[in-house]
Every structure is written in structure tokens, then in C-alpha cells.
């Protein structure tokens, strides 16, 4: 690579990085603005004080919400990884009647608009007595067509010889799943895990519907609680809340990104 | 025909880790040149530097006399066969072979003509419409070869092209590649870790270890006159037998109470002494210098027999005898040794004392 090309690449990288990251920086700036500064169209706050952050913690039990979100997202993530990998495994490594039809059925669930399911699901959860509880917040999301689809694509790249080898050596299918399929697919599992976690972290309407209590409520509800309609929202505080809420997810991406990279290079050297 | 010249070529990834430590070599046009060494010795890196896939950290590369350090891979007029063949899974054999030919400013007709020739030469004609995954390992290997020769570049680089094949096929391909090279008269630079491949195929070979050249030369010269203990044990199977001994008063003392009488060199002191297995012949008459040892294992290969025996408590040697010898295990056998068959390596530098100071090319 010539120096000129390198410089050009870096320029493009920096430019696109700036464009991609700008909205987040903007939110960060707003999170330090007081009162009307935001509405007057300023870009850089007058001074960087933590008042808004303290306010955000005061306004809603943010810490409690953060812990709840962490628990809910982690449980959903683990549940999804488990169920999706099991189902994807079945779609790739077992043979049963109606498999293809079932797969199409699975995929079709992705197309069901959530608006249509919200109210009936709420009633189901209510009749199960799961309102205001972690099962109600998590279990409906354990099955996920998207994740099953993603893992199926990944599992399909595993050479069939590996499966045959395990059959020959008398290893049970489940053991093959645990000891061969899962470790090989680690990268995909981590990617999917991050995705699941983030999606769960960003849920709003469902947690709002099934909870009545700050003991189980999640951060996105907290964010909504900070905004107002008829009265001017304190955007500085709201953005401080946003920053606090996206901090864990950004950290996760940062760490996950590294792990991802490790996983990928390890796979490449082999 | 173009020669290749490497001058003090070095490669380092980080400042302190040097993968190649100054390689100097001239590869003659039309030569079959083999780079051999254990894995991790830097031979593939060297090949990739020649190809232009890796940057040259320092030193100079000349192709056909022209400075080529900064040349793009495609401008070096060479072809390359990769270890895993690097076939495009989504293209047919024909498309794979013809890949990139359009850059050579050939007409469509010429392209397909060349492609057919290459396929014909390698017996791939029936498979032209197939995808790589529908081929056997040997056929894939041939596709990779065809893709290299179709370019008609004067230099061809091969990076362990046979390592994914089974033993029998490997032997067959070995001679095929050699014949092909002769037929086309191209310069071939061939990387392998297999000393047999190197011995059987090379016009000349270069042995690398830990980024340093150990020895360069014709296979037999190297076999007969290994430059150091590394080369001695790397080239030849089974490897050269070695033991620490010393020379005193013109007598060679081996640690197994064996003393060889005369020596026509003026050597004295401690040495690592080596001897090829085939030089440990069965003692037939008593006035020969002999070595007596207990047989621990016997491998009969039909035309020859390998006899393992306990030289000292910790050291086993192997002898290779022509013919079939059913020796019971545990028997004490006498081996005759000729002093001129012994190779003496400096105890400190591990260099062959006979070759010391001699330029080895």
C-alpha cells in the first residue's frame, strides 16, 4: 500500500467515522447543556458540569432501572442463544418430517408486526400471572426467528464430515452439538449475543405494558419518564439519561468487538 | 528466461522480531529451486515476498536483473500455487483457470485456447464445467496448477502445493510437476517442509531454519556434505546418527567404548560426530573397526532393513542394510564403521569441520 493510498484511506475512515459518530457526540454535548441552551441551537455547552447527570439520577431510580435492564437483557440473551442454537442445530443436523415447512414457519414469524401481538400477549402474560415480573419481561422473547436464521446460516458452513466423524465415534448428537457445533460457532454466537442483548436493552413498549413497579422496570421507561410533551422537556437531563443508558451498550460493543476480532483471527489461522 | 536475485532480504513484523535474517541467493533461469525447512522457518514468507504479497523490510529483489522491490505482484510476471489452492468455490474449473487472463490482453479465443491447452496438459478436460467442490483433492490440485501455467509466466511459485494430498498421490504429482516444469522450461520456486520432496524434485535447494540460510546446493551435495548438524538431521530419512565424541592422539573415541583407529585429519578435541545409517554396515571381518550394540527394533521394508539399536543408555541409532535381515530383538550385533564416512561437527558451532571456511553454493 502506498503512503498516498494510506493517507486517503485514513481520511475516508476519519470522515465516515465522524459522520457515523457525530449524532452520539451531539447527544453527549447536549447532555451538558443547561435550560434553554439546547433550544437556542448551541453545539457546545457553556460549561461541562455534571448537574444534568445528577439530576437524571434524582429524577428516576436510574440505577435500579439499569440493574433491571442488565438482568432482563442478560436473561433474554441467554435464553435466546440457547433456544436459537438448539433450533438451528435441528434445522441443519437432523432430519424430520416437515422440516423445511417448519423453517419457513419460523422465518415467517419475523414478519408478524408486533402491534398485532402486543395486546393478546399482554393478556396471556396477565392470565399466567406474570405481570410485573421478570418471566413476563423475558420469556416471550426467548424464541427468535432471526437468531435461528443467523445460526442456521452459520451451522451450514460446518463441514458435514465433522458430524459424520462424531457419528462414527459414537458421540451422541447432543454431545456433538455441545462439544463441536457450539465452540466452532463461537463468533456467531457472540455476535448474536450482542445483538440480542442490545435489542432487549432497547425495548420500551413491552416492559412498560407488563410492569407497574420500579422494582422491575427498565431504563428505556426511565428515559421516557424524563421527557415531557406539553411542558418543555429538560433536554440536557434527557440526554444525560441517554448517555448513561447507552454507556453500557457502547462498552459492550467495544469489548464485544475485540472478542469478535479475536475469534475471527483465531478462526483464520487455524 | 529471467534470473531471480535476492540481496540481503530481510523481513520483520515488529522492530525486534526478525522473521528472515538476510537472504542472499541467485536463482537461475529454468531452475527448479526448492526452499525447504521446518514449519515456521520463514520459507513461505520468503516466497510471498518474492511474489510481492509481503513487503520487503530491507534488502533488494531483482527479477531478470530489474529492481523489483516495489513492483506490484501482477507486474512481476509470475504465477503462484497456494497451499489450499485458493480456488474460487463459486466458479467452474474453466472460469477458475481463466481467472485473470483478461488482464493479459488476450482475445476471448486465445483465452479459451490457452485454457483448453492447460486443461489438456493436466487431464482436466472432462471437468471443465464442474465446480471445485465436485472435484477430488488431486483434481483440485491440478486446477491450481493449470491456473498457474495458463498464464505462461516465466516464473512459478509454489507454496507447499502437495501437503493436502495423500502419500501416493503426492509421489505421483511430484514427478508430474517436475516433468511439467521441464517441459515448459519455467523457473520454479517451490516451498516445502518435506525433505523427500526437496531431494527428489530440486535442481538446487536452500535449507532455512529460523530465518537463516543453513545451506544451499544440489541435493546430493547437501546430503553428502551437510553444512551443520541441523542440515544433517533435517535431510535424509532416517536422519544422520549423531553422538558426542572426541579425538585424541589421532584416535576417534565414541562414547560406547568404540575407538576408531586412524584419522587422516589433524583434528583434536571434542566433536559432534555423525554417520549416515547406510554407512553402519554389518561387520564381516574382525579387523574392521566395530561397534557392538543390542538391537531394539527392526523394520523390514523389503529392499532394505532398518535396525534400531541402543548406542548408549540414552541414545539410539539406526542402521540401514540392503536386503532382508531377520535379526531377533535383543541380539548383540557388530557394525563396521569406516572413518571416512564420519562427519565431524564443531562441538560449539555445530558446523561441519570439513566445510568450515569454504563458501558453499
Amino acid at each position: 500500500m502506498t503512503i498516498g493510498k494510506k493517507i486517503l484511506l485514513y481520511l475516508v475512515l476519519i470522515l465516515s467515522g465522524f459522520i457515523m459518530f457525530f449524532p452520539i457526540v451531539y447527544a453527549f454535548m447536549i447532555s451538558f447543556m443547561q435550560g434553554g441552551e439546547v433550544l437556542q441551537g448551541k453545539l457546545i455547552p457553556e460549561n461541562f458540569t455534571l448537574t444534568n447527570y445528577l439530576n437524571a439520577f434524582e429524577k428516576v431510580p436510574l440505577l435500579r432501572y439499569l440493574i433491571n435492564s442488565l438482568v432482563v437483557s442478560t436473561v433474554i440473551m441467554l435464553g435466546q442463544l440457547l433456544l436459537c442454537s438448539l433450533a438451528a442445530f435441528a434445522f441443519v443436523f437432523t432430519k424430520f418430517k416437515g422440516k423445511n415447512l417448519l423453517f419457513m414457519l419460523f422465518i415467517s414469524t419475523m414478519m408478524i408486526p408486533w402491534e398485532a401481538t402486543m395486546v393478546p400477549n399482554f393478556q396471556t402474560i396477565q392470565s399466567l400471572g406474570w405481570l410485573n415480573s421478570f418471566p413476563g419481561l423475558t420469556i416471550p422473547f426467548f424464541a427468535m426467528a432471526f437468531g435461528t436464521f443467523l445460526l442456521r446460516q452459520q451451522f451450514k458452513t460446518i463441514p458435514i464430515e465433522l458430524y459424520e466423524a462424531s457419528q462414527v465415534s459414537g458421540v451422541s448428537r447432543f454431545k456433538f452439538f455441545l462439544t463441536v457445533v457450539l465452540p466452532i460457532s463461537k463468533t456467531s454466537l457472540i455476535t448474536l449475543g450482542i445483538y440480542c442483548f442490545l435489542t432487549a436493552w432497547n425495548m420500551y413498549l413491552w416492559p412498560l405494558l407488563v410492569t407497574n413497579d420500579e422494582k422491575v422496570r427498565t431504563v428505556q421507561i426511565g428515559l421516557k419518564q424524563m421527557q415531557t410533551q406539553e411542558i418543555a422537556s429538560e433536554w440536557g437531563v434527557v440526554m444525560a439519561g441517554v448517555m448513561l443508558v447507552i454507556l453500557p451498550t457502547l462498552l459492550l460493543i467495544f469489548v464485544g468487538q475485540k472478542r469478535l476480532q479475536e475469534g475471527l483471527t483465531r478462526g483464520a489461522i487455524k | 528466461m529471467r534470473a531471480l536475485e535476492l540481496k540481503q532480504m530481510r523481513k520483520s513484523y515488529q522492530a525486534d522480531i526478525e522473521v528472515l535474517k538476510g537472504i542472499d541467493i541467485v536463482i537461475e533461469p529454468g531452475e527448479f529451486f526448492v526452499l525447504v525447512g521446518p514449519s515456521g522457518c520463514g520459507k513461505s514468507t520468503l516466497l510471498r515476498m518474492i511474489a510481492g504479497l509481503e513487503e520487503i523490510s530491507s534488502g533488494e529483489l531483482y527479477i531478470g536483473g530489474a529492481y523489483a522491490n516495489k513492483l506490484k505482484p501482477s507486474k512481476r510476471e509470475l504465477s503462484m500455487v497456494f497451499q489450499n489452492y485458493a480456488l474460487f468455490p463459486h466458479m467452474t474449473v474453466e472460469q477458475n483457470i481463466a481467472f485473470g487472463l483478461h488482464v493479459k490482453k488476450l482475445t476471448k479465443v486465445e483465452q479459451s485456447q490457452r485454457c483448453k491447452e492447460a486443461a489438456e496438459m493436466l487431464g482436466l478436460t472432462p471437468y471443465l464445467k464442474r465446480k471445485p467442490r465436485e472435484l477430488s483433492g488431486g483434481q483440485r490440485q491440478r486446477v491450481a496448477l493449470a491456473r498457474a501455467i495458463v498464464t505462461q509466466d516465466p516464473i512459478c511459485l509454489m507454496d507447499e502445493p502437495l501437503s493436502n494430498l495423500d502419500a501416493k498421490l503426492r509421489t505421483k504429482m511430484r514427478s508430474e510437476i517436475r516433468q511439467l516444469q521441464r517441459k515448459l522450461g519455467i523457473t520454479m520456486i517451490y516451498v516445502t517442509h518435506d525433505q523427500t520432496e526437496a531431494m527428489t524434485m530440486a535442481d538446487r535447494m536452500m535449507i532455512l531454519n529460523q530465518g537463516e540460510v543453513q545451506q544451499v546446493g544440489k541435493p546430493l551435495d547437501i546430503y553428502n556434505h551437510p553444512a551443520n548438524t541441523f542440515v544433517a538431521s533435517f535431510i535424509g530419512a532416517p536422519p544422520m546418527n549423531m553422538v558426542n565424541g572426541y579425538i585424541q592422539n589421532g584416535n576417534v573415541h565414541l562414547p560406547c567404548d568404540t575407538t576408531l583407529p586412524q584419522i587422516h585429519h589433524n583434528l583434536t578435541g571434542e566433536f559432534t560426530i555423525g554417520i549416515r545409517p547406510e554407512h553402519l554396515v554389518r561387520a564381516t571381518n574382525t579387523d574392521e573397526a566395530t561397534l557392538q550394540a543390542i538391537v531394539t527394533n527392526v523394520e523390514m521394508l523389503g529392499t532394505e532393513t532398518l535396525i534400531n539399536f541402543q548406542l548408549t543408555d540414552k541414545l539410539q541409532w539406526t542402521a540401514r542394510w540392503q536386503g532382508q535381515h531377520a535379526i531377533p530383538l535383543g541380539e548383540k550385533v557388530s557394525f563396521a564403521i569406516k572413518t571416512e564416512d564420519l562427519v565431524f561437527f564443531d562441538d560449539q558451532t555445530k558446523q561441519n569441520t570439513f566445510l568450515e571456511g569454504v563458501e558453499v553454493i
Partner: protein
Amino acid sequence: MKKLWVVSILCMLIFMTACSNDSANTEEASEDGKTEVIFWHSMSGELEHVVQEVADGFNAEQDEITVTPVFQGTYEEAITKFNTVAGTEDAPAIMQTFEVGTKYMIDSGKIQPVQKFIDDEGYDMNQWEKNITNYYSVDDTQYSMPFNSSTPVLIYNKDAFKEAGLDPEKAPETYSELKEAAKKLTNDDQVGFSILNYGWFIEELIAVQGGLFVDNDNGRTGNAEKAVFNGEEGLKVFELISEMHKEGTFYNTGQNWDDIRAAFQSGKIAMYLDSSAGIRATVDNAPFEVGAGYLPVPDGVDRQGVIIGGASLWMAKDIDEEKQRAAWEFMKYVTTPDVQAQWHLKSGYFSINPAAYDLPVVQEEWEKYPQLKVTVDQLKNTIPSEATQGALISVFPEARQKVVSAMESLYQGVEPKEALDRAAAEIDQSLEAANRKNGSQ
């Protein structure tokens, strides 16, 4: 990897314990002998704190009842949830619903009109502001208890007025004054006037002229069957917007409250209509002097006054009478002058109980924010009628969307009459469908 497992297992553990705790929690509440009143509301931001303070005040004052306010998202979200749980044990005792949901709540059959308790106790309703309670009263039955109430006002930039040579102490009162002022205020960087694309403001601008929104006396004497806002009054409003927009003295700020406030505070617009509840924050945040005035009327039209906006508190049916009574106690507490004074000062909404305005705390605040008094006066001067009582429509939210679309089409050059008629026709259809359903019930 190990760490990851530890974290996962920990999370699972928390999860498990949380599950097992859950059933215990619900029982605990009733164990201490107090009646628990769950109060669902949609007050977010600073308002949620004020609601909590009111509830805390009530809980501290007596030891029979505990009121627990729970935020349930926007009005729409809360109403969806209420709709689903109404009639079950998960239903709240008190439910806050926006003004346009009034007809819906009445029709739902899941609420208990507060009139019952007023009658039972002979509670004196006259201490409440008639112009507020009227909205939630149908056929002389008080259905819900007004809670957060607001009206629209004209907000303007006094500094800009001075610069344009206008009297900063005198807000434009008629359309011609408004237009003239807007013309003077409009320059390269500033546009004279703006209205949020929100149906409420159109309703108000019609009502202030004494015009009706739907037939059957604004739906107060029978189910509304036809939209009538496309009459003379509505046309005047739309013509005003259309003309000013064509002149370039009207700025389209979209549907977001915050966008229009941003436009005002950044000096992009000099006058706009805002909710009385938002005034104080606007005054605080603006880097210039802010004035407030009454809603403008067309020339030669007598000002009738404004309709109340905001939300009210509803009581659920099908719950223990004891809980209903407890909820009623809380509602009464909320309307006491002291509480209302606090509410008015902290939230910016009106006091339901006008007595609160005479309290020194309020008077002091008014000294600081004379703009607040303007809003109260505007409400006080309102002449009660079907027009200012506000419309009662089952499909009100939908109607508002249609009006917004009509407003938006004005900016695309559609004729005011055409825009209004189209919206009215669409609302007629919806009304017809809704009435048909209700009829077949």
C-alpha cells in the same frame, strides 16, 4: 470466558429470586391494613415528581389510605393498558386520561363517574372552576375529576417587538393586528408567527369565536354525527394560516412541541401559540423578554374564551367500593386550595380550585411571572357555552390527525376551504362508522 459464566449465573440467580419474591410482593401491600390506591398517570419529567409529592402529602396526612402513583407511558399507551386490565384485579383505582379520551372512557363502561360520590356526600362543586369542570361534565353528570388543565396562549418575543417598532406590552388581539405585527416582525432571519400542527390549537381558535367542532351541540346533547368545523369560523382560521404562510409571515414548525419552542427561543419565530402549562419554562429558558397574550380573534368577533385542555382523573368501576372511596378521598385532597396552589406553581397547570390563586404564594409567583396571570384571566373570562365546553367525540384522536393533515396541506398550497372540507368529510366517515358500532352494541 469464566467471568462470563459467573456473570450469567449471577444474573440467573437474581432472576430466580426476583421471581419468587414477586408473588409475596402483591400480598404485602394489603397486609398493613391500609387501602392501597393505585394511580396510573402519564406525567413524565418534572411533573412526575410533582405528582409524587402530591401523593406523598396525602399519604402523610392520614393513615388509612396509601396512594401509589405509577407512570404508564403516554396517554395513548396508558389507555391501551387500562383497556386491557379494566375489570381485573390489575386495574388501577385512579386513571389519568387526556381530554380527548373523555368520550371513549364514558363509552367504555369501565369507569365510575365521580358524580356518585359528589351526590353521596353533597360535596360542594362550586368551589371548582366551572370553566374546567364543564369539559368533563356530560348531561349534568361529572364523570371525572379535572387534574392537569391548560389553555392555549399567544407567546411573543418582546425584544423582537421593540426592534420591529411594536409595543412590547400589547399583544395583537385580532387577526389583522396579528398579521400586521407578523409582517413587521418578519425579516431575513425571523418569521412573524407560527402555530404547532396540532388539532388542539385549531379547536381553540374556532371555539374562541364561538364556533362548534361537531354537530349535536359539540356532541354534548347526543352522539356527534357530523363535523362542522369547516364552517365560517374554521374557514377564518385556515384562511389566516394560509394567507400568512403565502406571505411568508407564518412558519411551519411541524408537530413537535419542542421544535416550535426551539424555533421561538432561537429567534426563528417571534410569536406562536403555546400551552399555558409551558409558559414558565419558556420564560426561564428564553434569552429575551417573553410576553403572553390572549388567543387572537378575527376582526369584529366577540371573544368567547377558551376550551380547557389537559387531562382528568377517572375512577375504575368493578373494583372494591372501599378502594373507590379511598380514591375519592384522594381526589378531594388534590382539589384543596393548598395542594392546588402547589400544583399550579410547580407544574404550570391551572388550579381547579380558584381559591388557590388568592394564596400569597401564588400571588408572589405571579409578580415574577405576570405571564401566568394572563392565562388564568383568559380562562376566567371565558363565557360558558357548548363551544367553549369543548367537543365530545368518540373518534377525537383520529379527528385531530385529520385536522393536522389539513393544516399540513395548507402549506402545500391547498385552498383552505378544500382542506377543511376534506378533513370534515373524513371525520364524518369515522363518526358514522363509530356510531354504527356503538349502535350495534
